[in-house]
């Protein structure tokens, strides 16, 4: 192959986050500028997947220097070309500034957000062009599949997986090797592998980024799984809300077929493998494995009682192995580097790394991959850069609608499957939402329950009826109509729903409520006994604002910002707020130059 050698590579992130911040226009402008300056033969533009630092998008990295520019827009392109690419001078104003120290950091690896991460499943995301199979192969892609198919027996692969200690990254944490063993042990003429990419937890987007940023990594992981359990056909079940992920995966499958990496007799090993994409149709419960399989079969996506487990009777009654996207993303690493390399990372019970989607009231939102056993404090304050606007930390919610909220005392907790369970929450798919003093814990619990209640499929009574009753109680508490005994009732209902529901959705639905009651009981009591929301978030419990007449200087600034015209008065006279009209939005309070406005 005769390839042009370029002196610079400009990596433009075109993940969903950066695209919505304008990365596509940025790339077009850059192409035009390079053509105009006659540099398109020297500088190559590469579209990459997600760098994980979505907050700062659009993101651009220029190699060989490795300079990291953030929040780049079209207007900056000329300067980048003239200064950086022509004259070799860094454009300092576009460099990342550490939120705590305001220090400007030119190189990607030195930013705290990246420095403290260890990337295994995300290693290619943001570094290669996800639509180029050649780039994937150039960084060692499909080597693991080659090794597995030509040098290893299926049982050897499963033993390697078992020894590595890899556990399911979708939330349950079941040992992956054992799951594969069960599917292998079932005799059948036909078996299936399924990749669960029905990422429905609000606040989690690692599966989307993996599929968008490194689709071949997932295909390779699935191929190894299929060979190990004796399957020849597989499905990737993707949410329809992820159009870019679907497009990139389709392209990857097509390219792999052309290269003979999918299809018949792969690597001359006699192994055949066919891969399909199945688009979801919008139902959270389809993330549950038996519901997901019903959905692939064309039915309503409702769960089935287990046993029989999918490894015995799964898709169309055939033995089926189903894993999450991130689980598959770890497989090539384990096969290539060996079980020991993987199990040496992380904690004793939870090997390897975990990707978290760090969001909420935090400075650096984005995707982070850290070794298991990293503490919550390290993730939130060192990688995440602390809280937005320097507010006080109140809680971190992990595990999405199945997890719970942990208060400040737990910040030093090393994160792994078991430590989180012991603390009353769970790993889940890896959502991590940080909340500050303005977040009301009762409202957060109500938010999650509202979600699970509307997503409950209705098959079993405890989940269908129970979540509805719990939501009614939470609604009345946040509206100031809470009654004595409501907390105990929530606890009792929660315990029953957990122990009697059919599937994981119901079994975990009460967790957000139970964990906030455990750690923030006082907030519930304040709502019920004093009709007061300490965080000031529950609109119905907020008291209206008043102006202290003796302090008012009659400037009229408050009346101008009031969205409902509740404030009236004469300039240089005294202004007053009509409490029947006031919606307690708080817009007036900060504009008063003499601090005469407060909540009455």
């Amino acid at each position, binding site marked *: 192959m005769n390839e042009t050698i370029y002196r610079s590579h400009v990596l433009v992130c075109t993940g*969903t*986050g950066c*695209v*919505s*911040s304008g990365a596509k226009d940025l790339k077009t402008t850059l192409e035009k500028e390079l053509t105009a300056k006659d540099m398109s033969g020297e500088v190559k533009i590469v579209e990459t997947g997600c760098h994980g*630092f*979505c*907050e700062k*998008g659009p993101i651009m990295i220029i190699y060989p220097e490795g300079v990291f520019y953030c929040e780049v827009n079209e207007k900056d392109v000329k300067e980048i070309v003239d200064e950086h690419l022509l004259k070799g001078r860094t454009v300092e104003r576009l460099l990342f500034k550490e939120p705590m120290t305001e220090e400007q950091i030119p190189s990607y690896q030195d930013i705290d957000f990246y420095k403290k991460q260890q990337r295994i499943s995300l290693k290619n995301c943001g570094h290669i062009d996800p639509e180029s199979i050649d780039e994937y192969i150039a960084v060692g892609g499909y080597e693991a599949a080659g090794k597995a198919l030509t040098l290893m027996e299926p049982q050897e692969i499963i033993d390697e997986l078992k020894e590595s200690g890899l556990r399911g990254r979708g939330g349950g944490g079941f040992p992956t090797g054992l799951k594969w063993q069960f599917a292998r042990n079932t005799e059948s003429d036909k078996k299936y592998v399924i990749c669960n990419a029905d*990422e*429905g*937890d*609000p*606040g*989690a*987007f690692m599966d*989307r980024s993996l599929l968008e940023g490194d689709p071949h990594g997932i295909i390779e992981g699935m191929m190894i799984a299929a060979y190990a359990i004796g399957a020849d056909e597989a499905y990737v079940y993707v949410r*329809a*809300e*992820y*159009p870019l992920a679907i497009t990139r995966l389709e392209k990857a499958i097509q390219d792999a077929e052309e290269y003979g990496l999918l299809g018949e007799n792969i690597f001359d090993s006699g192994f055949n493998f066919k891969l399909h994409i199945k*688009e*979801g*149709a*919008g*139902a*959270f419960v389809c993330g549950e494995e038996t519901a997901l399989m019903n*959905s*692939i*079969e*064309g*039915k*309503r*996506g*409702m769960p089935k009682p287990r046993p029989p487990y999918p490894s015995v009777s799964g898709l169309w009654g055939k033995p089926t192995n189903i894993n999450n996207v991130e689980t598959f993303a770890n497989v090539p690493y384990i096969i290539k580097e060996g079980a020991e390399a993987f199990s040496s990372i992380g904690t004793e019970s939870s090997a390897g790394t975990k990707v978290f*989607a760090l*969001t*909420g*009231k935090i400075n650096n*939102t*984005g995707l982070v991959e850290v070794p298991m056993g990293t503490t919550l404090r390290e993730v939130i304050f060192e990688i995440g850069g602390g809280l937005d606007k320097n507010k006080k930390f109140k809680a971190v*919610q992990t595990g*999405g609608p199945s997890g719970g909220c942990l208060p400040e005392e737990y910040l030093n907790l090393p994160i792994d499957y078991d430590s989180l369970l012991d603390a009353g929450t769970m790993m889940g798919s890896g*959502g991590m*939402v940080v*909340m500050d003093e303005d*977040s009301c814990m009762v409202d*957060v619990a109500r*938010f*999650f329950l509202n*979600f699970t209640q509307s*997503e409950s*499929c209705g098959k079993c009574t405890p989940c269908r009826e129970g979540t509805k009753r719990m939501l009614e109680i939470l609604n009345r508490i946040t509206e100031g109509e809470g009654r004595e005994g409501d907390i105990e009732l929530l606890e009792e209902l929660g315990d029953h729903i957990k122990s009697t529901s059919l599937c994981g959705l119901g079994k975990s639905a009460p967790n957000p409520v139970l964990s906030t009651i455990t750690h923030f009981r006082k907030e519930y009591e304040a709502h019920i006994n004093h009709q007061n929301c300490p965080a000031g978030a529950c609109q119905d419990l907020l008291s209206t604002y008043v102006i202290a007449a003796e302090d008012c200087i009659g400037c009229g600034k408050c009346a101008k910002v009031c969205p409902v015209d509740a404030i009236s008065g004469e300039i240089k006279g005294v202004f007053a707020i009509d409490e029947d009209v006031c919606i307690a939005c708080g817009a007036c309070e900060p504009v008063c130059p003499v601090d005469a406005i407060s909540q009455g």
Partner: protein
Amino acid sequence: MAHLKGEKLAKYLKPVNEILGRYESKERYLIPVLQEAQEEYGYLPEEVLTEIALGLNLSLSQVYGVVTFYSQFHQEPRGNNIIRICMGTACHVRGAGKIMDVLKEELEIDSGETTDDLAFTLESVACIGACGLAPVIMVNDDTHGRLIPEEIPSILAKYK
């Protein structure tokens, strides 16, 4: 599209029959067929569902059961522009509720409804996975992030 008969009905059903022609008559193709039909018609009227049931050799009640189970499928006409407002955790804590209020006010409809002129349909979704940009809305395939309520009118104006 109710009360079409004879030739007119046959003409109306031509696209769905073309879609059905590309699939084997098996239950497993029900969801892809429904997805394609909705793409074509904008929603799933009863006549189309009946045709799909016939084409895939399923009962209409089975088809209806699937259509009502998944939130992606709609049995009423939809707006030319679909606004999806994210109500996920990250957006929730960063003020998605206020964005929703402004949208409702500007469009004079509730969540889940369509404006009378069929210009916009407003719906809430649990998470569109762009949490780094919270609060976020999607208008058709465009994502608009880091929103403040004041920006909403100018965004809507682009699609009118």
